[in-house]
Each structure stands twice: as structure tokens, then as C-alpha cells.
């Protein structure tokens, strides 16, 4: 990454983009799980807590964005933790989706739905996008520590 200012802007933009992405999909997932809105694609997992989790993640990103006036490191720390939770939640969601399919296969449950659609849940897509972001932030921070 380039100069301090560039790095600061990068962190800020990442925070804004992922903060709003998680906020919007969190709210959608929450509302669809309590049947206030319809889920047109069918890729929103129907649990209330999942939606709340995404909203909490978005709050962490946004808290980072709001601290942009302080050091860049502080803003990055929010992003790091937010990213960690996003990845944790995304992986959880993906594993649960896969295990639902397994249940379908062995016939203990029915109607797990289309695996592709289920795996395109916002939390999983955002998690995939965040893995490289998180990894590069982590590497960068560790390298800064060694210097």
C-alpha cells in the first residue's frame, strides 16, 4: 500500500462499503425472517439472529468509519474485528447450508432448496469478498509490528 493518506482512504472506503453492505443485507434478512418482506430470490436464511448478527457486524464497520479522524490504526482495528466476525459468520452459514443438503440426501429432512441459491446468501458472498481484504490487513499489520 502507498502513503499513509492513501492507506487511510482505502481503509475508510472499505469500511463504508462493507458497513453499508452488511447493514442493508442484515436488515433485509431480519425483515424477511419475520415475514415482513418477501424474499424474491430465496437466498436469505430465515433466522432472526442471523439478521441481527449482520447488523452487529455492520455496526462494527460503521464504528470504524466514524473513528476516521483518529489514527488509521484505530480505524483498521474495527475493520479487522468486523472482518473476522464476517468470516466466522459466513463460514458458519456455508457449513450449515451444506449440512442441510446432506440432511436432504439422507432423507431426514426435505426442502433444503437449491444449493446454489442458498450458497449465494449475502453473508456468504460478503464473506468470500472479505477473506482477501482481511488477509491483507492482517499481513500488513503484522509486518508493521515486525518493522
Amino acid at each position, binding site marked *: 500500500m502507498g502513503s499513509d493518506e492513501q492507506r487511510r482512504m482505502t481503509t475508510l472506503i472499505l469500511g463504508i462499503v462493507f458497513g453499508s453492505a452488511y447493514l442493508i443485507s442484515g436488515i433485509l434478512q431480519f425483515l424477511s425472517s419475520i415475514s415482513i418482506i418477501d424474499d424474491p430470490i430465496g437466498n436469505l436464511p*430465515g*433466522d432472526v439472529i442471523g439478521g441481527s448478527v449482520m447488523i452487529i457486524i455492520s455496526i462494527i464497520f460503521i464504528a470504524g468509519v466514524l473513528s476516521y479522524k483518529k489514527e488509521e490504526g*484505530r480505524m483498521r482495528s474495527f475493520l479487522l474485528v468486523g472482518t473476522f466476525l464476517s468470516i*466466522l459468520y459466513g463460514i*458458519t452459514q456455508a457449513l*450449515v447450508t451444506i*449440512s442441510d443438503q446432506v440432511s436432504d440426501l*439422507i432423507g431426514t429432512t426435505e426442502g433444503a432448496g437449491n444449493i446454489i441459491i442458498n450458497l449465494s446468501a449475502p453473508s456468504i458472498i460478503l464473506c468470500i469478498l472479505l477473506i482477501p481484504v482481511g488477509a491483507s490487513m492482517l499481513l500488513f499489520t503484522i509486518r508493521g509490528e515486525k518493522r
Partner: protein
Amino acid sequence: MDPKPIKVALAGNPNVGKTTLFNELTGENLHVGNWPGVTVEKVIGKKVHKGHNIEIVDLPGTYSLTAYSKDELITRNYIVEEEPDLVLNIIDPTNLGRNLYLTYQLMELQCQMLLAVNMWDLTKDPENAVDLKALSRELDIEAIPTISTTGKGVRELLDAIVRVAGSNPTCKEQIRFNDDIEKEIHKITRALNDWDPGRDHRWMAIKALEGDKQVWDLLKERDLDDRLRELMGEIDPMGMEISITDGRYRQIDNVLAKVKKKVKKKEKISDLIDSVVTNRHLGIPIFLVIIWSIFELTFEFATPFSNLIDMGFGELSTFALEQIQPAWLSSLIGEGIIGGVGAVIIFLPNILVLFFLISLLESSGYMARAAFVMDRVMSKIGLSGKSFIPMVIGFGCNVPAIMATRSIDDRKDRLVTILVNPFVSCGARLPVYILLIGIFFKGSGSMVIFFLYLLGIVVAILSAKLFRVTILKGDPAPFIMELPRYRGPDLRLSIRSTWEKGYQYLKKAGTVILLGSVIMWFLASYSFSLENVDYGSEASMAAAMGKFIVPILAPLGFDWRITVALIFGFVAKEIVVSAMGVLYNVGAEGSTLTERLSSEGSGMTSLNSLSLMVFVLLYVPCLATIGVIKQETGSWGWAIFAIIYTTSIAYLLALIIYQGGLLLGFG
């Protein structure tokens, strides 16, 4: 040679290298270790230096000098009562602020002091650099740099000991608190000096203002307490204690500003992450998200594997019932053993996932942060954060959790922590939840499990509060803990520990639970006159026993089969599941326990299964836990109290849930 030895006391925070320095100073070989309690005994070493006899006492490592913990009391009582010629305060320059907190408290005792700034080798790092001259000037105490691991500076230190101990006590620099506090301190000091002449009472005055229990006891012994209370009038001791602590920290900040070089702090990844995960507002939501993910994986992800095992046992049971002769043996194996033991083994995948994730979390270093975050909540309602670590261990099993309370010094804190630990939902209760949730709460499974675990913690915390204001009155000791560095997940370690837990689970299934299942089968197959009756029918002993007690449990929505299962669950909570596996086997060949429970005839509904889960969560701790409560509290009284208390709470909450649910039209 000087006949009277110079008495020197070594004081310092834990881990400053005190033991190592003690060995260097005295030449005696002591065991150096991190284990708490290594220096709790009084250890004395002797040294002759330049014709002077020096006698060195190693005091316990402490962060402070309050009356809250054993170690701190030992330290300050020694200094006050034995009046050593010199207190050698060892400080760690990499943690100067925290170390100076003790230094200032030692200074308040107005003893002759000398500083050893140990680990001087680490001050090469600009972040740890300390301006020794400025430090010495600010505190008005001579400071000697040492490296106790190499013995560097020890000779100079011995020289200084002889020099300083022989000099006249100087009036050391003291903290000036803010004017309001100083006024009070002066007033009290003067009064105490009048009442009890011959010594200076500033330290006692400060401690009295802080509401220090031991000092007030001492005042009472001298019949001064009522007079002093009158003099002090309307002072809020809590507020005072906080302002005084605050005053010390402010002073320390001033000193730090003068002795530490300003370096741009390097970003440490641990600090970066900690600033967020221990954030006042975000700390708890982050903790909840992590715990919820663990339950989601434990329940949702592991379930198909459990179902596969379940189906396997179903087949096996059918095979046994159809192929084995004579009939009683086929029933023993098919219904008793496979039904009972199988019902428990089914949940092995869930147990493995749960323990794997918990061990990942533990080894990452996050658990210490969770305890730190929870301490804020718990201290608000008067509990020590130290109690939280045993709670986390209790997620696995309450027995080691209760043993882990040994690290809590304060007797009452420890007792409270032991008594509430059984409410923390251990791994043995998980099979009960998963069995019932899989049938009656499909789709919201992890939410229900999450709710149950949370309920356990909430009941534990509220009970602790209740004990604290009734049978075990008092305030908790303050909680200081070091946050270890974060580490990447150690897969090998986690897999090994998971394997061990899984092995223990299977071993339990093969021993206690096997035995329980056989007994259960026997009780369900025979009447009291030992006649073979229809399996699990109303004529069996099990039914007779259950029916005898069921009137008590019926208001919770339980029938006789659940009642029997619960009685046997006292031995080990998994037995509730295995007993249900045996008892619900009635006339339903080949189907799985899940299918049998969800059928109309089982009498189970989502309402009474919720009531059952709450009851299982909270009622009597298992036999092993009761044993360890007896062992750790040293009394059967507390063990029996725990049995009665937990069961009463369980009954009450299950009653509220079941009857409340009926009133609201569920069930």
C-alpha cells in the same frame, strides 16, 4: 561484624523477576516458576556483604496493597508490623504504570525504600526506555538497574541496600491528593495522632477513608472506630475509594510523562484487536455473536451426522429384536442397551464440534478477553470477573470448572462461584436439548440452545447476587488479569483435546450410561414381584416408581417416563436421554427415538419439552459435580444446599414456563 542484621523485604508485582533476583541476592537456590502461590510461603535468605549481615524476606508478588486478598495482606502486614529496615521494590520497566501503583502504596506506608528496576535489558527497546535519574528524582528514592537473569547490577544493589538502610529515614515524596481529600486525610491523621500518639497515622487515615476492612477492625480493637466515624461524618466510602485510586493514577501519569521517552507506539496487533473486542459497547455483542456461531455449528452443522448414527442404531436395534433369542436377551440388547447407550452416542458429532470450537477459542486467547468484558457487567452487580473463567470451563464440564475456582483467593468469592457453577450448561446436557429441539423446535434450533445457555448464565449470575446479599455477604475482590497475546488457531492441540473429550464421552457411554440403561431396562421389564411384564407397561417397576413421584412433577408437564428419566439423570445428565431411549421404546420396532417421541402417543409437546429442557438445565447437579462441591467446600452442608437450591430454582422456572405456556394457549 555488625551483630544486628539489616532486614530487607522484597516487594513487587508478580512476574517482575523477584524470585530470580532473590536467588541472585542470597545465592540460595529457589524454584523459579509462574505457578500462583510459589512465593506464598515466607522465604528468608541471608547474605553477608562488606561485613554487614543482610536478611532478605521474599514477599508475595502483588499489584496493590488492599485488604482484599491474602497475598496483599501478608505483604502489608509484614511491612507494618515487622518494620524492615528497607523495602526493596522491584519494578518492571516494560509495565511501569502498573508497577508504580504498588510503589506509591508502599510509599504511603512511609517505609525506607529502594527501587530495583529489573529487566533492564529490555529497556534497549525505545518503547520500554526509562529515564532512571528522572524516576529517582520524582519518587525521591534511589533506583538501581538490574538484570536478575544474568546477575548484572546485583553488586550495586547490595551496596545500595547497605547505604540506604543505614541512612536516616528521609521524608519521602507522598502523593498529594486533591484538596478535598487532603483536607479529610489531614483531619483524620491529626485526630489519630492525638488519640494514639507515638506514630504517624497518614497511612491509616488514607486506608480508613478507603473503607479498608482490616484497618477498621484495627481501629475497633483500639476502640477508636466510633469516634472516627463520628469525625468523618457523611463520607461516601465508595466514592472516596474511587477518588483516592484516581489520585494515585493521576500522580503516576505525571511521573510517567517525565520518565518515559515519547516514542510513536508501534501498532501491536493484539492491542489493535483488544481495543475493539473489549470496547465498552461492542464487547458484549461481539462475544454473543461468537458464542452464537458456536451453537449454530454445534447444532445445525453436526445434526446430519447425528442423524446418520441414529439411523444406524435404529437398524441395529431392529436386527437385535428380530434375530436374537431368547426374548429377554433380545429385549435387553435391542431395547435396553442399544436404545439407551445408542441414544447418547448419537450426539457424539455435536459434542465433538462443540468442544473443538471451544478449544479453538480458548487457545486463540479470546476467552481471557471475554472474561474481561464480562467482568464489567458482573462487577456492576457485585460479582468478580474471576468467576467467569470457571463458568466458561463449565460449558465443558462442571467438575473441572469447580476445581478451577481454586485460583480465587477470596473465600466467599470462591464459594459463590462454586455454588452457581452447576447452572452453567455442561456438555452432558447438550444431548437432551438436541434430541428435543430436533423434534419440537426445528428451524429455530440454535436460537433455543442459545437461549438455554444464556438462561443458565443469567440464573447463575442472579443466584450469585442473591448469595452475595444474603448468606455470603460482602464485596468481591477486584479483578486484575493479564491478557495473553493472541495466537493463531493451534489445530493439532484442538484436535487432540477434542479427541480426548470425545473419548471420555464414549467411555462414559460405555460404563455409567450402559449400567444405567441396563438398570432402566430391568425396571421397565419387570414388576416388583419380578414377573416379566410387557416392556415399559404400566405394571413395570419403572412405571410404579414414576407414578409415585409424578404428582410432584405433573404441574411441569412431565409424565411418569420423564420422571423416571429425571431421577436417573442424577447420576449423569446424559442418562435422561438414554432413559428416554429405553422407556419410549414401547412397541415401536425399528423406528428411531426421534420418530417415537414425535408420535402422538408420546405425550410430548413443544411446551413440555421446553419445560423439560429448562428443568434439565437447572436441576440437581450430577453425582460427580456434587462430589467435587463437597470436596472443594469441605462440607456436605454446601453440597446438600446446592442440591436443594438448584432443584427448587429448576422447579420454579419450569413451572412458570409450563403453566404460563398453558395459560397463553400453547401446548
